[in-house]
């Protein structure tokens, strides 16, 4: 249980911290003033021990702020004053308990925290159920009718039935995390936690602490014991995103953990058994990384498990339009916009564009188009592509005929030069008559 202790008496705080940390399941963080505490409230403590008499804010004020942030977070007030009316007021404001500082304080707190444990685990279960609900909804988003995605769907269902390791390979924006969630929340361990960590987002010297946890004093700045992601995911699923970015020396440690099924917190020589399914994901070709010496071969085989390859959006045929319509209706509903339709030209453009940023890019483009659209219709001009990949690659990826490429280029220049055929013909070094013929045949549009 993660306990935040807000107490300005350093000695008293340290004594309580020591006492509470005697239970290895407790992770205690000390704060000596309200402001530093409030700045860390987003780190989701399971409960708060709040000293009533703080230097910068009264206990009542802090309690109100906590309750505004999260009305269900249990707050135990610890006070040096035996003032019944204050106690009653605080309990009325939503304090979980009111404990007077005396010789038995720490026993009372110990008991109160033990009683809380059940409440906290129910709270966690509730939030996991909520997450599960929303993930089921998310799961719909990786659905599609294309053969490629139906294959993925079948693999997800198979992976969910057992606790086999899974490796998800796919370009950026294809929905790798959604697949991990779909597997977890459809598995028998769905009630247990799904813990995700993006390995590319954490500096390499901090990754070990994040994964395996540390004891207080394990390194400079490690003031408290901290539980790592492997322990947090106990009984559930650990999702290691961007595994291809892991340093070779951490790869060796990870391999050992996966083989022995036990971890050591940094600064401790006590092994802790782990019991969680591991799902990894990467946008890299790991086999290639192994060949080039950047990824350990033994780790590769250990994590490969069931490989699920997510197809890029450009290979998903009509799913592009299906997803575009789905994002369109979700966005308009969420923002209470009137119903919008995609023009025929816009639909064709969505089908033809290669979507280097995949589903993530499609979603962003559609949402922007919903905002830009006028008269209830999304036109081709409302689709703004801000792809970071090479324009030529994208163009070539569309796989059009040379005739169609020519038509596109001429159309582009006509637009640029306000339909001045003479100017465009000079620029592209083609005959004016060719352009006039194309306009006449409606291959080019000058409206």
């Amino acid at each position, binding site marked *: 249980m993660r306990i935040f202790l807000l107490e300005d*008496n*350093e*000695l*008293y705080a*340290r*004594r309580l911290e*020591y006492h509470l940390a005697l239970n290895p399941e407790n992770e205690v963080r000390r704060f000596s003033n309200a402001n530093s505490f409030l700045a860390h409230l987003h780190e989701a403590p399971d409960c708060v021990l709040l000293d009533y008499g703080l230097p910068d804010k009264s206990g009542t004020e802090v309690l109100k702020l906590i309750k505004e942030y999260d009305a269900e977070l249990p707050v135990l007030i610890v006070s*040096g004053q035996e003032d019944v009316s204050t106690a009653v007021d605080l309990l009325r404001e939503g304090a979980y308990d009111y404990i007077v500082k005396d*010789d038995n304080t*720490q026993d009372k707190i110990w008991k109160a925290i033990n009683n809380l444990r059940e409440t906290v685990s129910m709270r966690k279960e509730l939030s996991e159920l909520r997450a599960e609900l929303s993930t089921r909804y998310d799961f719909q988003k990786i659905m599609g009718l294309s053969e490629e995605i139906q294959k993925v769907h079948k693999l997800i269902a198979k992976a969910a039935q057992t606790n086999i390791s899974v490796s998800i390979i796919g370009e950026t924006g294809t929905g790798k995390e959604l697949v991990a969630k779909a597997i977890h929340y459809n598995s028998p361990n769905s009630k247990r936690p799904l813990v995700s960590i993006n390995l590319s987002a954490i500096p390499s010297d901090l990754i070990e602490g994040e994964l395996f946890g540390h004891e207080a004093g394990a390194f400079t700045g490690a003031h408290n014991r901290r539980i790592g992601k492997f322990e947090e995911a106990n009984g559930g699923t650990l999702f290691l995103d961007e595994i291809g970015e892991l340093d070779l020396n951490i790869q060796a440690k990870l391999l050992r953990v996966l083989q022995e099924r036990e971890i050591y917190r940094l600064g401790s020589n006590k092994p802790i058994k782990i019991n969680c399914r591991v799902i990894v994901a990467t946008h890299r070709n790991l086999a290639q990384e192994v060949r080039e010496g950047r990824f350990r071969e033994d780790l590769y085989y250990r994590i490969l498990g069931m490989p699920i390859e997510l197809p890029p959006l450009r290979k998903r045929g009509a799913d592009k339009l299906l997803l575009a319509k789905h994002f369109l209706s979700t966005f308009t509903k969420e923002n209470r916009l009137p119903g919008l339709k995609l023009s025929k030209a816009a639909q064709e453009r969505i089908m033809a564009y290669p979507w280097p940023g995949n589903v993530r890019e499609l979603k962003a483009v559609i949402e922007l188009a919903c905002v830009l659209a006028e008269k209830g219709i999304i036109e081709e001009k409302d689709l703004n592509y801000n792809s970071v990949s090479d324009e030529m690659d994208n163009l070539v990826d569309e796989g059009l005929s040379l005739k169609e490429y020519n038509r596109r280029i001429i159309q582009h220049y006509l637009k640029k030069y306000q339909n001045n055929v003479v100017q465009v013909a000079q620029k592209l070094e083609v005959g004016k008559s060719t352009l006039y013929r194309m306009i006449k045949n409606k291959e080019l549009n000058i409206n």
Partner: protein
Amino acid sequence: MSDSVYDLSQLEELGGGDMDFVNMMVATFLEHTPGQLEEMKKAHASGDWATLGSIAHKIKPNVDMFGINTIVQDIRDLEQMGKAGESGPDMDSKLAKVDQELNKAFVALSER
């Protein structure tokens, strides 16, 4: 232990033989309490009874924790007097005693 100026048995019991914990607590006590004592004396000199009372309130659990038994009652009296704004010779003598005993404890603890 030197002539019962302090008694660490409560802390030792809590630490369950973990001397690192006891040493850390002693170091924290020596780091924070002398400053608090000085603040309390300053508040007394300037007639700020409320501040005196609130500092006494903070020192109180530390006095208990370190078993500085000769002033267990005096520090509580100072807290109450400060709260009620009752100054007078009684307050002066109690503060002098607290000052003297805490200083003895500081010396003894730093020499242990």
